[in-house]
């Protein structure tokens, strides 16, 4: 029996154009097809090319990559390019995310404090540190759009654990700090608050870095 057909239960393999069109239209059927179409192949590929032997880890990475790919295509931040298939694009996203996770690219709290101190310019009381979140009346719609785009990029892909999980539980699943503490095996709600605070500062630092890079502040 054709296992591929069994997986899709009657759905045909979609072409790149069909995938992108369906994603832009927000078609849930395409969501399912897109996920299943490359999943098995990715797990094997990850084992051979990213040294991810555990299928569960590979699936987690694959799911995250699907989220990013879907998100980018649905809001027009990605267009099909000649010579680059959808599969290649998807696998590259996963590879990048996996690579970043392995590098354990973290902004330490010391780095953040050092950064915040440098921005405050304590030696110049008249200096007003620019507020990166000040999108105010001076910013045009294009600047606002760019900042929102950066927020989209940084949130999810730019955050490492445990911040991603904490944000998910607090903002998406709307858990209390006590519930999050139990879920993540923290000692108590205060620990969750402290960790959440660190995550928010890290996120702010990450956003500021990107805003400065694109001259948005």
């Amino acid at each position, binding site marked *: 029996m054709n296992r591929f057909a069994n997986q899709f239960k009657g759905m045909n393999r979609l072409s790149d154009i069909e995938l992108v069109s369906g994603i832009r239209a927000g078609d849930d059927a395409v969501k399912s097809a897109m996920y*299943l179409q490359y999943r098995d192949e990715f797990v*094997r590929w990850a*084992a051979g090319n990213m040294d991810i032997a555990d299928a569960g880890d590979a699936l987690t990475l694959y*799911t*995250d990559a*699907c989220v990013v790919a879907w998100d980018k295509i649905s809001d027009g931040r990605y267009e099909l390019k000649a010579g680059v298939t959808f599969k290649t694009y998807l696998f590259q996203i996963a590879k990048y995310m996996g690579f970043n996770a392995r590098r354990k690219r973290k902004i330490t709290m010391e780095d953040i404090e050092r950064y915040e101190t440098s921005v405050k310019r304590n030696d110049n009381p008249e200096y007003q540190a620019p507020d990166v979140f000040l999108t105010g009346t001076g910013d045009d719609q294009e600047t606002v759009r760019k900042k929102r785009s950066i*927020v989209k990029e940084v949130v999810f892909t730019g955050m490492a654990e445990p911040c991603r999980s904490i944000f998910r539980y607090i*903002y*998406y699943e709307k858990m209390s700090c006590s519930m999050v503490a139990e879920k993540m095996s923290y000692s108590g709600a205060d620990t969750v608050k402290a960790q959440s*605070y660190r995550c928010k500062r890290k996120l702010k630092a990450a956003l500021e870095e990107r805003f400065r890079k694109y001259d948005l502040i």
Partner: protein
Amino acid sequence: MNGEKGQSPDLEMYDTIDRYVLELMEEDERIVFEKAMAADASLAEQVSVRRMVIEEVRRKEALRDDFLTVEAAHPYQADDPADSERHGKPDQHGRRLPAGVRRIMYFVISVAAAACLVSGIFFRYSYVSQGIEVGNDVVLADVIQPSRGDSAVDEIRKAIEDVRYAEAGNLIAAFRSVPAPESDLSTEEGRYLYEQYLADCMAVDYLEAVKFLRQGHPFKAKRILKSIISCDSYYSDQATELLEKL
């Protein structure tokens, strides 16, 4: 996440903004906070970006849940035999060749095998032809002198020269089936007959080799010729000459 005594101002501000965006404030607190936002553009913008972040987290996590639902409905099966059959057994690092690469690999192997087969046929044909030509160039009467009477060796030689190879083969088999004649080696006549018998055996070996060459069986001929050389037969020089021509 109520504001607590002892918290840093920053943490308190983060908490307050979160509580407002997440609609966790009491009514009177919310009104006070909104008045503060109206008076402070910076605060208003912080709230705006915080709202942006939270919306993005929710959106991405919802999307992730959608994919997890698909996974739950069609769970990945690592040990599916069909998967292994389709993609082959993984190597020690768990790698399987993609189907496309395997197809190309099989095609290359098939072409190589076909090329080897064709080459083998071609070389064998040319080798056989060469063997026939070498065998036909041998003048048997010059190598094996005809005896005065019709001996078994003469009959075999004539059969080969007359292209009666099957008959020659039968004669050779008949000759070899006959045991060596009993000779009294203590007498001169006995020794002469024995040496004559040995000479006939060597001649039959050489004739058989030539027969095989002419029949297009160069490998059989080669085996006999090497045997003749290794036994230091009377016909070793002729056998060496034939091998060099092959």
